[in-house]
């Protein structure tokens, strides 16, 4: 199922916040169509890792290649990569002064220079995909957290990305809303898009992930297929982490 084409490659990536070494010698290869779940305790560098992939954070050592393009200071290349990589954030980060429909069409119209009618057609298609087309003319503040996050997913999908990054997409949601977001993500995963997802939803990892990556202290401690990862982790640190979150 997983093809051999590499789409993300991180080679010996290092990053510091001031003097704090947040990513240490990260090596990660993601193939086209792969679904990766990244987990680990807070402060372990998971979010920083995926934020480096579309250069919301700058890495200071090593190389990162996305779809064959190396991430450097070249702004044009960064903008190209960003338009191919969709991202969903913990706090949704919808634009509160724009309607849902305008949130979705914004990048198509202003970054891709698409005519409005065409952009709106695409936006409505994706709103239907996340099952809230009836909210198109409301403002983000009028929607529930789960609906907002589904809008955020639709906004990223509008750019027709090759890769989707999820940064703890369900952590800020009420328990009743988590499922509706996870359902949409599972559907996406089944459609074969490349996904890198930071999450603590282990049920999601078990259902759709091709690989689970466990991070601590800025390092990738271990990575494995979900079944083996949950049944027989190699490290004591992983076991401890799993005990703690699976108990809850």
């Amino acid at each position, binding site marked *: 199922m997983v093809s051999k084409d590499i789409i993300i490659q991180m080679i010996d990536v290092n990053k510091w916040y001031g003097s704090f070494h947040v990513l240490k010698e990260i090596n990660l290869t993601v193939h086209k169509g792969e679904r990766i779940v990244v987990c680990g305790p807070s402060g372990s560098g998971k979010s920083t890792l995926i934020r480096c992939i579309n250069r*919301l954070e700058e890495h200071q050592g090593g190389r990162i290649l996305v779809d064959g393009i190396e991430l450097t200071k070249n702004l044009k290349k960064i903008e190209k990569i960003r338009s191919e990589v969709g991202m969903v954030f913990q706090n949704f980060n919808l634009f*509160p*002064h724009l309607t849902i429909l305008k949130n979705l069409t914004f990048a198509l119209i202003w970054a891709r220079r698409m005519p409005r009618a065409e952009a709106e057609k695409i936006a409505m298609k994706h709103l239907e995909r996340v099952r809230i087309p009836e909210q198109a003319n409301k403002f983000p503040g009028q929607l529930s957290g789960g609906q907002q996050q589904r809008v955020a997913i639709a906004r990223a999908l509008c750019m027709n990305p090759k890769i989707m990054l999820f940064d703890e997409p369900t952590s800020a949601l009420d328990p009743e809303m988590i499922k509706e977001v996870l359902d949409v993500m599972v559907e996406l995963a089944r459609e074969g898009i490349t996904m890198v997802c930071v999450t603590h939803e282990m049920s999601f990892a078990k259902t759709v992930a091709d690989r689970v990556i466990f991070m601590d202290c800025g390092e990738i401690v271990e990575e494995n297929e979900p079944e083996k990862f949950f049944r027989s982790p190699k490290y004591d640190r992983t076991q401890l982490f799993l005990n703690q979150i699976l108990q809850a």
Partner: protein
Amino acid sequence: MGPSASSSSSNLLVFVPRPSLPAPRQTVGIIGWLGASLFNGWFNSILTLIGLGLLWETVPPLLSWAIFNAVWTGGPADCPAGHNGACWAFIYDKFRILMVGMYPAEQIWRPLLAGGIFVVLGAVTVFRLLNPLRLIALWFLFLLPVYWLISGGLCLTVVDQSLWGGLMLSLGLAFVGILMSLPLGILLALGRYSNFAIIKSICVGIIEPVRGVPLITILFMASVMMPLFLPVGININNLLRVQIGIILFSAAYIAEVVRGGLQAIPLGQYDAAKSIGLNYWKTTVLIILPQALRHVIPSLIGRCIALFKDTSLVIIVGLLDFLGMVKASAQDPDWLGHDAEAYVFCSIIYWVICFSMSRYGHSLEQKKEAE
């Protein structure tokens, strides 16, 4: 008693919420308002009664002075000294000077037309007939034509700027000041907020010194000192120099207000804009600024009101604005002793204009709430 319940086909009880009851009568309507606002406890009741007593003592004499005993028409002879009422005939007589200063009477249609344009633009603004960007463009579009209309040139008789004055001058200085200092202030704020050290220090280098001195100092600098520094042959007239001073002063304050708004925007907004491939300017102009400016509408309107009132300081560099004309009129030997009328009239006009701006700001906030 637990929640009401009835049995259903399954074994579960069906939860039926209780109906909502109306609120107690004494907490709603006019009685509720009186009780909560005016007679809430013995102390507040006494304060209310004292307040009513004060109003009873002050309002009737004020009304009799301002309206019932007032002289509305005629000349100085109709308002003898010691007359126990306002002499509005004085304001009527001085009205033209108060509005347009020494502007020649036979050219009076020009300020009137400018005033008409101003009222139309104001109506377009208040009734929101245009979206914000087009509205600002419209105001800028009329800036030069109105200036030409007042100052003359081409086919119109030139009216020297020393003849301009009154409310026309105050409004002109204030609105050109607001119009120009808003974009300048926003740019300064963006510069100060930017990551580039050089741009940042240039902006701080403009904002802090300008904010650190009183407006009077800047007006003096503009009026008296600037000509000394300008190269020989370059001659900027006094009014323009004063206008530039006002714009700079206002821009420095607006920059700090806007910076406050920028700081209120969560970093996630930048992340989101970047992640869908927007560049710096598109992110700033279309995502960040609309939100930041909305946060600071009350302070921005406050700055505009302050700027309008601050224009009365131009009297110290020899320009006779509205307040200056009021002062000069009160000293007219024919009409001595009518300072009260002059300043009451002046206050009313200032208040009406400032209050309108305040209400406009309020309506902008309401629109923001609605979203």
